[in-house]
């Protein structure tokens, strides 16, 4: 009897794993299709009388990029300052606290600038986009678009994809600057150097490759945020509760995907 129950429990467990795995594969395929279709409309929409509208792109760029500037600036600055404090504290034991500057410069431009920028965008826009498209899905607005002969992906996803491909690198540059500035303020106070000297040191350490590493990642993260947020919006169902679930899932998946992708990136770029 016991073994029978255990077997049943094991079966339920494996079935659940199987189902989750299938959902994961489905999501992945769905995302790939979304990417292909939105690229199609961006590149060829004009010839199909379905152009991706400039107005929509500008609106998304405002939403995703410009509106994120204040909070991103504060977070990046604070992060840079924290890195400087921790770095100086740790390196002081070896009498090498002045090395903190090169540490900040490379780690910010390669990793943390882009990471903070994408997490801010994922948190702000990842939820907002999923909620907006999810609401439209439930109110039959997506169906209304389709029966009007307007491809929903062209109308809703392509402008977001363009906006994030343009705004993510821009925000990353801003994030880099603010984090380095944050580190600079602490360095001035602790290392008793001038801001000019600090920036000279930063520039002498940095190589174009460091910046490219961050910027190229920002493009990939922008694509990930777009696909995950819009995909979750399109799949939303089940009223207000379902909408809440879709937005939460969107943000959590966006941030997880960013961090995991970042790790893989770093693995292949450094090792």
């Amino acid at each position, binding site marked *: 009897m016991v073994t029978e129950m255990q077997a049943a429990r094991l079966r339920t467990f494996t079935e659940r794993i199987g189902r989750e795995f299938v959902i994961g594969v489905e999501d992945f395929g769905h995302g790939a299709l979304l990417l292909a279709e939105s690229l199609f409309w961006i590149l060829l929409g004009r010839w199909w009388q379905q152009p991706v509208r400039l107005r929509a792109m500008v609106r998304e760029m405002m939403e995703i990029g410009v509106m994120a500037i204040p909070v991103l600036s504060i977070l990046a600055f604070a992060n840079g300052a924290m890195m400087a404090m921790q770095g100086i504290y740790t390196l002081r034991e070896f009498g090498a606290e002045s090395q903190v500057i090169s540490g900040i410069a490379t780690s910010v431009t390669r990793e943390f600038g882009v990471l903070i920028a994408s997490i801010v965008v994922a948190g702000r826009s990842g939820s907002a986009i999923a909620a907006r498209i999810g609401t439209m899905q439930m*109110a039959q607005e997506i*169906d209304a678009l389709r*029966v*009007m*002969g*307007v491809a929903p992906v062209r109308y809703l996803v392509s402008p977001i994809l363009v906006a994030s491909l343009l705004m993510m690198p821009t925000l990353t540059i801003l994030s880099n600057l603010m984090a380095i500035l944050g580190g600079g303020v602490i360095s001035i106070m602790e290392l008793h150097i001038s801001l000019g000297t600090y920036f000279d040191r930063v520039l002498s350490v940095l190589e174009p490759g460091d910046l490219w590493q961050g910027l190229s990642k920002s493009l990939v993260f922008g694509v990930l945020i777009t696909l995950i947020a819009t995909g979750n919006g399109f799949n939303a169902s089940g009223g207000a509760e379902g909408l809440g679930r879709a937005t939460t899932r969107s943000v959590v998946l966006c941030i997880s995907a960013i961090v995991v992708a970042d790790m893989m990136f770093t693995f292949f770029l450094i090792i």
Partner: protein
Amino acid sequence: MMSAQPNHSRDSVIEVSNLVTYYGRHKVLDDVSLDVASGEIMVIMGGSGSGKSTLLRYLLGLHRADSGVVRLFGRDINTLNSREWMGLRRRMGVAFQGGALFNSMTVGENVRMPLREHTRLDENTMRIMSRMKLEVVNLAGFEHLMPSQLSGGMLKRAALARALVMDPALLFFDEPSAGLDPVVAADLDNLILRIRDAMRVSIVVVTHELESAFKIADRITVLDQGRILMTGTVDEVRNSDIARVRNLLSRTCDEQLVDTDDYLQRLTGGTD
């Protein structure tokens, strides 16, 4: 295969033959065939869960049929490429149940949206055309409001204006009277009749309201549990002696005989 139903009248705007659809493993529509003639008002009537909303979604081409053929304007919609589909969609207008107006746009922008996407008219002409359609549905002067500021009846009329703005040959209306008080619902019925007479458009209305159906319909298709019980004129439906149609008209539900064994099995969830 294409000539399975050769004897349809040339005037049919919609021809459905032997449509079968599934939701998961559950069969939703079973062998549904109907046709809608040019210029007629066809009401698809049925209770909740009868499959009428599903049928509408298939008529709109939002899903692919599992089996059977749906023809719009004589074209099998499964064989259309996306460019042909787009051409066809311009000849169709749809007013969804909740209106499905875009919440981020004003009523006027909503009505202009199909024009903006499909025509190269200048802004002024589009404005005039959208005002004309809003006039038709008695919503003149409301174009600057947002959808959230409209009442239920106004939302449906605004959706109707948007559906009409491209002067479609075929109009779909999902549950025009659902959620409205009787006066507003009657008003909307009159509007549908007026539009048919003024614009010579074929109209498919999906509804569960008997009164509304009898008032506007040229013909009624009665759906029940995914099957068509009958298709006929208002009088034919009124005088029908099919038991389930009579039940629907007199609003009684038929007593379902309960098989005790079956019932117990369902409760305990046992398989055998």
